[in-house]
């Protein structure tokens, strides 16, 4: 279990603060290898079950791994590891005294995330959700400036979300007498008509929507991510929302069956429109920002709209697109946030003004940033294009042209967003070296970040292209296996 590997690392990191970076890296490498192993095992042998404490489900807590969550496990472990490696220096810079605490929280957060994904127990999911959230609050709260205030906001919203989810689980337990997901799923079909089931569903979804910052309950996200320390932002931004979307997929497809979720509820249509609103508003709000990380945060709000909308289209292409986008968006958010972290490391600021002439100073980081940007815009062969492709074809299939228009609109707005930054970085000279004509460029100040920060970033950027190129395999060999057969 990757979970256990990470736990061991956490404890070791606590004991021996000096080496906590090494231990954390080791632990996450272990987690990554075991989750990759798990993925290939699951793909060849079918789902795996691990019973915590040896109790047989439905009484004990079971960890259930199928292709879907094995895939997400790999993503989480990979993102966490890359970000860990890439931000070693900025962590050292930003929290010189609290390194031990930082890495402990970091690992606990990853444990929570991995746990959410692998658990097969509805209540256990809540506990792990809170583990991840509380460590997340702490990680963000460690930032400077307005971070504490933003975090407090996040705590309020997050807690309401989690409580709603808990309430939903309570109702489920009330009516089924079980907390095991598979068990609930087996019992539920007989009582779909019940009002309690309906409320359980609504509460669960409402809670998860809050946690994933689905418009209009996205208010906590932009500030929290913008003021978080770079190393924490690079971890939390790619993972939190995506894992919440995963939880939504899990609950809606595997606890409640697709027949119920899509046919009986009849909320697909309004939710897709809500997603349209999320995409449009997220994009427009991003356009209004003057600060790099904040802008990226609003882009995430729009991206959440992609995934939620794609999922609620309720057809195979749409859901495949949503799941693929969980993977892709995690990767591309990682790239842009890591690049932003690198910029922040050198420039000590991320307002647009600080980015002037940055191409000359940090060409490699910016190149990676451009790759991430292209992916978010949706330019082939980067992965963002392919998930967008599935989402759009799902929308066309479902006849939902509003969603198609929203996706295209947000592509265009993203193009504007990122090219504005690229323009600033590319054209505007440093303020202090402004007096030369354009044939004599200002003095070249090559100030790229150290290799240890660059290499993980480049690996992540490369993965965007690889993910794009191999997205066909990913979808046919993994995601389609993972989805229930009823979805066509």
């Amino acid at each position, binding site marked *: 279990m990757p979970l256990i590997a990470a736990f061991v690392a956490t404890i070791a990191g606590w004991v021996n603060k000096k080496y906590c970076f090494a231990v954390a890296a080791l632990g996450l490498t272990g987690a990554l290898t075991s989750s990759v192993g798990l993925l290939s095992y699951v793909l060849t042998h079918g789902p795996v079950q691990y019973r915590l404490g040896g109790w047989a489900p439905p009484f004990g807590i079971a960890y259930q791994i199928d292709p879907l969550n094995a895939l997400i496990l790999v993503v989480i472990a990979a993102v966490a590891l890359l970000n860990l490696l890439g931000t070693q220096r900025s962590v050292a810079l930003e929290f010189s005294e609290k390194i031990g605490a930082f890495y402990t929280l970091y690992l606990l957060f990853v444990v929570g995330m991995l746990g959410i994904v692998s658990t097969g127990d509805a209540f256990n999911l809540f506990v792990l959700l809170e583990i991840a*959230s*509380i460590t997340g609050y702490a990680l963000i*709260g460690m930032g400077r400036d307005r971070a504490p205030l933003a975090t*407090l906001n996040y705590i309020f919203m997050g*807690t309401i979300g989690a409580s709603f989810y*808990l309430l939903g689980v309570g109702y489920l337990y009330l009516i089924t007498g079980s907390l095991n997901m598979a068990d609930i799923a087996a019992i539920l079909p007989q009582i779909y008509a019940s009002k309690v089931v309906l409320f359980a569903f609504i509460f669960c979804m409402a809670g998860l929507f809050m946690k994933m910052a689905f418009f209009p309950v996205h208010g906590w996200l932009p500030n929290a991510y913008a003021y978080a320390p770079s190393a924490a932002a690079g971890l939390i931004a790619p993972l939190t929302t995506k894992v919440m979307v995963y939880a939504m997929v899990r609950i809606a497809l595997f606890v409640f069956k697709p027949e119920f979720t899509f046919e009986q509820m009849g909320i697909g249509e309004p939710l897709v429109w809500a997603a349209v609103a999320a995409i449009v508003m997220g994009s427009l709000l991003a356009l209004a920002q003057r600060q790099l990380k904040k802008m990226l945060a609003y882009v995430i709000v729009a991206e959440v709209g992609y995934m939620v909308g794609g999922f609620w289209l309720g057809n195979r292409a749409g859901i495949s697109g949503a799941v693929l986008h969980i993977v892709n968006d995690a990767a591309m958010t990682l790239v842009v946030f890591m690049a932003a972290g690198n910029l922040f490391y050198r420039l000590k600021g991320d307002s647009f003004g600080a980015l002037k002439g940055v191409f000359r100073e940090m060409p490699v980081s910016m190149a990676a940033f451009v790759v991430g940007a292209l992916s978010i815009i949706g330019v082939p062969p980067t992965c963002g294009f392919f998930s967008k492709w599935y989402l759009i074809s799902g929308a066309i299939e479902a006849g939902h042209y509003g969603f198609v228009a929203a996706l295209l609109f947000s592509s265009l707005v993203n193009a504007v967003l990122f090219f504005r930054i690229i323009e600033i970085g590319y054209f505007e000279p440093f303020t202090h070296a402004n007096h030369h004509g354009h044939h004599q460029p200002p003095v070249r100040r090559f100030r790229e970040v150290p290799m240890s920060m660059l290499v993980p970033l480049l690996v992540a950027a490369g993965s965007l292209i690889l993910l794009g190129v191999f997205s066909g395999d990913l979808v046919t060999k993994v995601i389609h296996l993972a989805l229930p057969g009823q979805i066509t």
Partner: protein
Amino acid sequence: MDGLFDFIVSKYNYWGYVVLMMIGMYAMIVKKNLVKKIIGMNIFQTAIILFYVSIGAKRDATLPIIAHGHGDAHHAVHAVDYMNPLPHVLMLTAIVVAVATLGVALALTIKIYKQYNTLEEDEINARLRGR
């Protein structure tokens, strides 16, 4: 009318938690003082804990400990006689979670107080805008 009152009285535990939840929610949204907001959050969480505890409870039931378990194997266990322990156990975890959240929230509040010398949200916002 009788039906309505019956409905309310017979489900009093649910109404109780709903009211508590609303109080918590109200505090979180309306109050401007950060500590009051945190208190509201706690009330909100507690409401849900109460809800869980209440669904496990039964009238005239006792603790789910089988007193005559050893050596008296023929004694039948009547589920009606015992409360359902599982929700209660779950709530132990939920309480821990709530406490941890509270801890983080209070720690942040202290940090904010050090930074701005106030806990009133309006004043902090005014100061941020002023900068």
